[in-house]
């Protein structure tokens, strides 16, 4: 994936704004940010962002490519949409943050150990497999993502929650065996593969 990153650096040279406009979801809005900071002040995880959205927008325009794409900041987005409804210029900030995170992830330069990046990947693979969320598999995969021992520890810490869900019949204990998704998952796989191919072609990230 770093090859793709190098290719992008060479293609856009010093024009990171153009790179974002052409490759990031809703990236063409970035230049419209007027630096008021309402988004940063509205974010529920605001204090946890190294660079809040307002800063990210300015950094893009200042060409700070590495700093933007390798930061954990965008991965703090909870998709609460506060920033979108409050932005005086109506920038789709949530989507731009998702788009930047996705782009960094696809280039292979997003922070490897960021838990939300890893969870997002686990989630997508979970739903893409059968077409519907397998909640048991999703939780187990998350708890065990750092190996067996820490997985046991995480699972024990979460045991209370799990037992509550089981007792109220809100968790299927046999979902690893009998989880039901769409009728023809293979057909769904074909759709998603094709969608990815087209997207990669459009964004110049052919593999």
């Amino acid at each position, binding site marked *: 994936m770093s090859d793709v990153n190098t290719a992008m650096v060479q293609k856009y040279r010093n024009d990171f704004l153009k790179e974002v406009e052409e490759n990031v979801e809703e990236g063409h809005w970035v230049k419209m940010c007027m630096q008021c900071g309402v988004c940063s002040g509205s974010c529920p995880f605001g204090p946890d962002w190294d660079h809040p959205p307002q800063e990210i927008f300015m950094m893009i325009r200042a060409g700070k490519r590495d700093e933007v794409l390798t930061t954990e900041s965008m991965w703090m987005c909870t998709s609460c949409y506060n920033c979108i409804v409050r932005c005086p210029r109506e920038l789709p900030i949530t989507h731009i943050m998702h788009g930047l*995170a996705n782009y960094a992830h696809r280039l292979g330069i997003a922070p490897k150990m960021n838990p939300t990046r890893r969870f997002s990947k686990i989630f997508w693979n979970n739903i893409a497999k059968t077409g519907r969320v397998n909640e048991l598999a999703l939780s187990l995969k998350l708890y065990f993502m750092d190996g067996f021992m820490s997985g046991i520890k995480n699972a024990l810490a979460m045991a209370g929650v799990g037992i509550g869900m089981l007792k109220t019949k809100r968790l299927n204990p046999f979902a690893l065996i009998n989880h039901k998704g769409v009728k023809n998952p293979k057909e769904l796989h074909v759709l998603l593969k094709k969608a990815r191919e087209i997207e990669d072609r459009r964004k110049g990230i052919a593999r």
Partner: protein
Amino acid sequence: MAKKEYSFYPGCSSERKASASNYMVSVDAMCKKLDIKLNEIPDWNCCSASIGYAEGGELPRHVMNARNIALSEQHSPGQDIVATCAACWLGAKETADRLDASEQLLADTKEVLKEAGLDIHLKNETPIRHMVEVLIEDIGYEGIKEPMVKSLEGIKFAGYVGCQTNRPFGVDGESFENPVYLDKMVETVGGEAITDYEKKVTCCGGALAFSEPKKSQKQIKDIIEAAYDQGADMIVTPCPVCQMNVEVYQDQINKHYGTKFHIPVTYYSQLLTVAYGGSAKEAGLDGNIVRAKQLEEIAAK
């Protein structure tokens, strides 16, 4: 013939033995009393939620939703699509909006769907709506009151609207910062609504309750604390993610912050079902981990 009929997108969490299965139970009972017929989209798939973005990207995410819309257009032509889950509603509606705004995206989506013998038309023929919109806009507060046989008098509710049932689309043209529909719904069935519940639209962390539990639980703590401060007996919400996050982590929050939280978190549909004379089971109250005893008592009367 039913009074109202919709194409229905239940979503993953509503399934049997899934995290919001009790929400679905109460929605079924509520709709029966209101004479609303829900035609489930056959073979629907996940909306990919908001958290799917890192690996899902743009087009694959939209294809997931477009497949559902296409199936709905085919199976229940001309009917509005109704979702009970905030994420499902948001995901499907967002995709419809995006495809409507971009010829390129629509053409790409059509090309992909062709592989499964499907097509999508859009043209606004199938508006995508949340169940609370159906209640407020189509049934109306008067209509919501009609099947009522019991009052929820004596119970004080903190109406927790949360994020995605509110932003970015909004419900019934209400304010993003201070929506009042949930309070009005509570009052319609005789409950007491805490209209100045200040955390009503605060984010619970959403999917990040999984990946960033400490940060999310800080949010959840504030949401519950404000409800207690206002003297709430229970919290009511329209969102399955809000419901789960605010309910299931109470023990962990108590351990970490030394609080003594033990407050039920219910769905609006559970309130209406009880007010309509439904049993605790029909209202899915046996699915609440922190039991809503006051509602159970009214249901048993």
